[in-house]
């Protein structure tokens, strides 16, 4: 049992951190946020060059999966820098879905291009009314034309405007909340009948609601067995939650650092406000939250690909609960301790706060995962 990184892992972490602190400092990031697309193709290409988009791509398709610790380290650095590019959506979730469901030919057609950054594929899964229930899908796919016809409304599809490929979950059979009967289709952006209602999200990323009206796709757009996508979707989701937890720890640490730094320099009553015990104890509580979240991010990373599905779900959910609660506590306290400056757009703390808020609401909120933990513990 040990928690050290090996030499290559440490080198990778250093490389990502160096790159981001150079290219993704606060002002550079702000510029990216204000650009028309809201993300940077240039940064994305460089992430590809560094091999970071290939971490979850299997070796035979030009990647280095599973790369568990490398993913943990990379996400941590991205969290620290508040990266808004579609890393989680495409390099983790999208990649895991294609990897888990695609035939060898489909994988070879999609994954190598995802590994280099030429292609972005994001899941279009959630729907209004489903909340975070992974099996509740009303979007339908029926056989028609030379393949399938898709109809439905996908809610808050993160990074949909950036995607070349939408990985749409649709019901091919079964009751509205049944695990059986779910299928995933690879739908290229711009396919007739696909309409995006794009928007920025509160944390500065981009997303869209995706409307599907009589979308005709060929038979080979279907990834994996018809009606049998749930296990792979669930596995991808858990991998995504583990990655999100790792990212969260990066954001949490950055938030705590910004707060200790600010309270050391901000003076009131003639002394730095860090001298006040009421504030000190708040920061001690923040630190404990960060460390507990860090511990659980390790545990989640190690269990995210576990063969034991119950154990995987239980552990990943426990991690998301701990991380989600830390996100809320640390985010709120950081803003509070920054005083008036905390509620402006000018310092990094408010940007961290909004990312922490979004993380808590992404891939299942705290209550969803607490409930799943209870269910899987029985």
């Amino acid at each position: 049992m040990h928690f050290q990184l090996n030499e290559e892992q440490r080198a990778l972490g250093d490389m990502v951190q160096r790159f981001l602190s150079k290219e993704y400092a606060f002002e550079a990031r702000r510029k990216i946020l204000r650009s028309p697309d809201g993300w940077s193709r240039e940064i994305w290409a460089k992430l590809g060059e560094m091999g970071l988009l290939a971490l979850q791509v299997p070796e035979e398709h030009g990647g280095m999966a599973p790369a568990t610790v490398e993913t943990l380290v990379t996400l941590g650095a991205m969290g620290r820098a508040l990266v808004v590019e579609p890393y989680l959506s495409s390099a983790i979730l999208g990649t895991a879905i294609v990897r888990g469901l695609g035939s060898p030919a489909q994988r070879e057609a999609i994954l190598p291009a995802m590994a280099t950054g030429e292609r972005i594929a994001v899941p279009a899964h959630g729907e209004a009314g489903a909340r975070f229930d992974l099996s509740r899908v009303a979007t339908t796919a029926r056989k028609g034309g030379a393949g399938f016809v898709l109809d439905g409304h996908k809610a808050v599809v993160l990074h949909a405007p950036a995607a070349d490929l939408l990985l749409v979950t649709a019901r091919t059979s079964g009751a509205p909340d049944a695990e059986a009967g779910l299928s995933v289709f690879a739908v290229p952006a711009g396919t007739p009948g696909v309409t995006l209602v794009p928007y920025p999200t509160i944390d500065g990323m981009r997303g869209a609601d995706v409307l599907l009206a009589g979308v005709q796709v060929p038979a080979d757009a279907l990834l994996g067995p018809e009606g049998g996508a749930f296990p792979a979707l669930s596995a991808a989701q858990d991998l995504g939650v583990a990655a999100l937890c790792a990212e969260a720890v990066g954001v949490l640490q950055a938030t705590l650092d910004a707060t200790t730094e600010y309270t050391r320099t901000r003076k009131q009553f003639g002394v730095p406000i860090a001298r006040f015990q009421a504030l000190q104890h708040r920061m001690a509580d923040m630190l404990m939250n960060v460390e507990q979240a860090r511990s659980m991010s390790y545990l989640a990373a190690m269990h995210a690909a576990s063969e034991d599905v119950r154990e995987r779900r239980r552990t990943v959910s426990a991690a998301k609960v701990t991380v989600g609660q830390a996100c809320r506590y640390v985010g709120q306290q950081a803003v509070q301790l920054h005083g008036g400056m905390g509620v402006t757009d000018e310092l990094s703390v408010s940007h961290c706060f909004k990312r922490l808020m979004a993380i808590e609401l992404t891939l299942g909120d705290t209550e969803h995962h607490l409930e799943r933990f209870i269910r899987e513990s029985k």
Partner: protein
Amino acid sequence: MDLSFTPEEQCFRDEVRAFLDQSLPPAMRHKVLEGLHVPPEDTLEWQRILFRKGWGGPNWPTEFGGTGWDPVRQFIFEEECAAAGTPRLLPFGLKMVGPVIQRFGNAAQHARFLPRILSGEDWWCQGYSEPESGSDLASLRTLAVREGDHYLVNGQKTWITLAQHADWIFCLVRTDRTGKAQAGISFLLIDMKTPGVTVRPIVMLDGGHEVNEVWFEDVKVPVENLVGEENKGWTYAKFLLGHERANIAGIGGSKRELARLKRIASEERKHGRPLSEDPLFAARLAQVEIDLLALEITNLRVLSAEAEKRAPGPEASLLKIKGTEIQQALTELMVQAIGPYALPFRIEALSDGFAGPAVGPEYAAPLAATYCNMRKASIYGGSNEIQKNIITQMILGL
């Protein structure tokens, strides 16, 4: 990064488990698992059982008769002991004064004191706190004045855990009143049978007699009972703190209590259904279970840092705070679980073998008392607020 124990560590766990299966007397086990009173004879008997196996000093180096186990093995041992329901080993000798004597004592002190701790012959207690010196320990005033070949000790110590059974007390005493408070403190070993030593019980909110006041009135202590150098006691006290905090998170014990809470919650009923299936209760229970899981990993992180010979640092404060919060939350949920049957309080029913008429479920009797008792956890060993001060200064550098 690898979160699993090595095959050797797994083997060690199996060995410990097999030994406990065979050697832990069922009556002792019953008392611990049911939260009943564990009498001092059980504590000493368990120490002797371990001593006969060669495991009397699980945290001691081999040169002093210990096992020489690394921090991970010590953790596994404590975890298995907790799960099996062994009495808690007395920390005062093994984890407190023992390591101080080993590190700072002389050869005569090694020979005289250490073997009797391992064999369970001597019961030690800790004389630190005073009525006016709680969290601000360095302000202590118990005075030791050198007179020829002995010190004359006068003063009062308080909150002395289990002093009523103790043969010896290790004390922080003031030997110099001139300089900085920390610089005038010495570390003295005092025989509890010395004339002038008086022990007075303090009855606690659960009716238990766990702590005491100890008074010193012209107590003559031979100078050979001074550990290390005069006026260096504060350094030794800080060293001791590092050892006292090993296993401070109490992971094994909390896992055992969590299992007990689950048993109780599955027996109790709400709306005609098992309480464990009530969504509100299940959520609170799951929250504690998740907090404990996170703390377990944090604890392993600290252990692995120790195993890599990085000094045990202020992370111990985090373990103490979270560990005690979890211990307290578990006792709180047990009380909540039995509802009105938390109220009947018959102190005799807290001991094994109580034959009076049954009131409520069998497991109900000790729960409220344990809840009350465990309020101490966030106060002792440096209150949790003091721990937060340490985190702010030592980790956050504020």
